[in-house]
């Protein structure tokens, strides 16, 4: 790999991008009603894990993070009395997802800051690599 630092930072970008995608999906579906006979919309939670065993970066190989899976929120959600909803059951109940907007916005900020941090790594790494290319000019 010619520029391992760039690949490492790219893996970080992709983790935080996926996280932001999951958060926006959760927020878009925050008010999805579902019949009580079925599951509510389940929030997506991104699970990140490090690439390799921690020796890659020092050995000169690309390292970083990867999305190792998605865990889903509680399908039970919360049952709300809404008799006018066409999806309501005989007791007038519908199921709403158990997604907390405050929690999602906090996650959005964390993901955004993480994304920015990896972008700044790319900037610095590019400077250093350009310097290296100038040796002997």
């Amino acid at each position: 790999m010619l520029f391992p630092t760039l690949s490492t930072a790219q893996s970080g970008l992709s983790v935080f991008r996926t996280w932001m995608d999951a958060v926006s999906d959760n927020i878009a579906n925050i008010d999805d009603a579902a019949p009580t006979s079925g599951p509510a919309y389940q929030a997506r939670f991104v699970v990140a894990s490090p690439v390799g065993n921690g020796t890659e970066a020092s050995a000169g190989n690309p390292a970083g993070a990867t999305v190792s899976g998605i865990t889903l929120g509680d399908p039970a959600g919360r049952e709300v009395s809404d008799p006018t909803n066409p999806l309501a059951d005989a007791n007038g109940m519908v199921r709403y997802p158990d997604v907390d907007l405050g929690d999602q916005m906090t996650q959005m900020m964390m993901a955004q800051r993480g994304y920015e941090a990896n972008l700044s790594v790319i900037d610095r790494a590019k400077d250093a690599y350009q310097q290296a290319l100038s040796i002997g000019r």
Partner: protein
Amino acid sequence: MIDATGSAIQAALDGLAARQRVIADNVANVETPGYIAGQVSFEDSLRAAIADGDPSSTAVSTTATTDPVNQNGNNVSIDNQVVSLTDTDLRYQTMVAAMNEKFGLLKTAIGGAS
């Protein structure tokens, strides 16, 4: 061709490049549960290697940090990492400038009196 000065500069560049890669790894894992940040040290080894007259024997070692972990078992401090990255970048540029000076002297010696 490359004398002790040149290989000292090269060893420093190697160490700084490794540090940059490890910092990038730390930043990519800033929110990864259970991730422990790594840190690179080579300066002490470089000093000893220069004293021994063989800078190319410098050892670059990566160790786990011992900073306290937060709730999800991660101990990456993003501000420390960014400051350290800037520091590493500037040191790298300094060593590149030194290497270019070294090659400049070499060019002069070869006969670049043009």
